[in-house]
């Protein structure tokens, strides 16, 4: 099976998105220095917000994957299975890139502010969990995208509801959420116990994607018209 071709499509499709995302994130992080005089709090905000943003970025890529990229590939090369397997490989590549990006941010914070103890910057569990969460989120967004492919209005409603939900939550609640997230990452034993569960979940969701994908492939060309 030739994974090189669909992976190349992934490369061309996303090659500018990552530098753009990380550039904007870093700029946003640096510019936040002007708004937050408390450096310790800022470090926590930057860490958690960057992480959440990278998760959202992964979800968006997962949505784009089966909303658009698959069709671009399938209308050129009719061997869809290659795309599915390349999608699996790409989910790992995406997680590696995102984890490396976060490592860079965490490393910078830990370097400039070593006495900061609000977030476990160098704990292996942090990186393992971030890595696995990215793969899981990617798989889930792929699966949901295929599932909701025909229900365009429902999809728009879900996106809109999520946006409204984020907008109406008061800022204090966000602080609570951030502190909760930071505390969660200190629960090393719990995170270790979550790893096998997450792995099983990833395998399960990708299996669902595979089943959905088979249906999508067979009915796709006619239903698009």
């Amino acid at each position, binding site marked *: *099976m*030739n994974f*090189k*071709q669909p992976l*190349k*499509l992934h490369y*061309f*499709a996303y090659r*500018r998105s990552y530098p753009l995302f990380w550039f904007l994130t870093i700029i946003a992080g640096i510019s936040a220095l002007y708004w937050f005089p408390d450096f310790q709090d800022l470090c926590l905000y930057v860490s958690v917000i960057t992480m959440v943003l990278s998760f959202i970025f992964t979800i968006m890529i997962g949505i784009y994957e089966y909303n*658009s*990229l698959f*069709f*671009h590939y*399938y*209308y*050129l*090369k*009719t*061997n*869809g*299975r*290659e795309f599915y397997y390349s999608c699996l490989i790409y989910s790992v590549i995406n997680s590696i890139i995102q984890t490396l990006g976060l490592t860079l941010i965490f490393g910078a914070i830990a370097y400039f502010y070593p006495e900061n103890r609000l977030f476990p910057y160098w704990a292996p569990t942090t990186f393992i969990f971030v890595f696995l969460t990215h793969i899981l989120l990617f798989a889930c967004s792929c699966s949901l995208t295929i599932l909701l492919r025909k229900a365009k209005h429902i999809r728009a409603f879900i996106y809109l509801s999520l946006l409204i939900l984020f907008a109406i939550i008061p800022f204090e609640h966000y602080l609570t959420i951030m502190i909760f997230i930071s505390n969660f990452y200190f629960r090393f034993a719990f995170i270790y116990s979550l790893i096998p569960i997450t792995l099983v979940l990833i395998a399960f969701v990708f299996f669902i994607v595979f089943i959905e994908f088979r249906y999508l492939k*067979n009915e*796709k*060309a*006619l239903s*698009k*018209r």
Partner: protein
Amino acid sequence: MSVLICEGLTKASKNLPIDKFNYNFLNNQIYAIVGKSDSGRETLLDLMAARIKPDSGTVYLDGEKLYENATMSKRLCYISKDTGFPGHLNIRAIFKLMASFYPKWDNAYAYELLDYFHIETRRSFSSLSSHEKQLVLGVLGLASRANITIFGTPLDDVDVKDRFDFFNFMYQHHIRYPRTLIISTDYIDEIESIIDKVLFLDKGRLFESCTIEEIKNNFRFLSGKTEVLKSLISGVKVIGIEERYNNLTVCVAKKLTKDEIRKYQKYLIKISEVPIQKVFIFLLNLREKKGIQ
């Protein structure tokens, strides 16, 4: 060098079904598929390119089943209306992508054609107008140099001049690198000089397939004064009639003998070739009159 064999292809669909399509697309020939919009042409092309799975029947490429066959799929390039790329990709990136998809990809030729059509390769795919997009897709199909290249109504939005030039390039490229080209088109008369065989499709069924030579030889237009022509064609199999004022044009489905030609000329009846598009329309009308489903 490749041969595409369609064996009993059937696909049920609400509007565009295909019913038991059998045909062998031979090596190094140019085929045109002509049909109405509800003839199932696009479904047929999707089936031939293994883009969709048939309900029954099989497509073989060089003796191997094509559906879900990664090795064989690189020998076939199918450019349809739906073919597209992520909008932010520029044409250069698209060319690089195509080069990895098709082993015989002709990069220099692709650049040469785009230069001819004044399309800059730095531009992103989304910034192209529909006219330019179709030209780019057409160029991709040609430059892929795949053994079997299928074009699904490739240049609908392209102006007549660029279309003429494109088909001219297609012919020259086919002479240089012979391969099988299958073109589904509404502009059959514009490409009749480059195609070898034409397939007429109606309601998912192949009802006629013939070479251009056969059409040229077996169908003739006779035109002249209505009263004169009407008296001359009694007993002749006429498949189409066009009457404008006092002038009648009929399409006869037979090879005219020397005696017949002499007879018609004697009564000042003009004999001419029938454009393929007209043959298709007349045959289709005939089928409708006979109630053939």
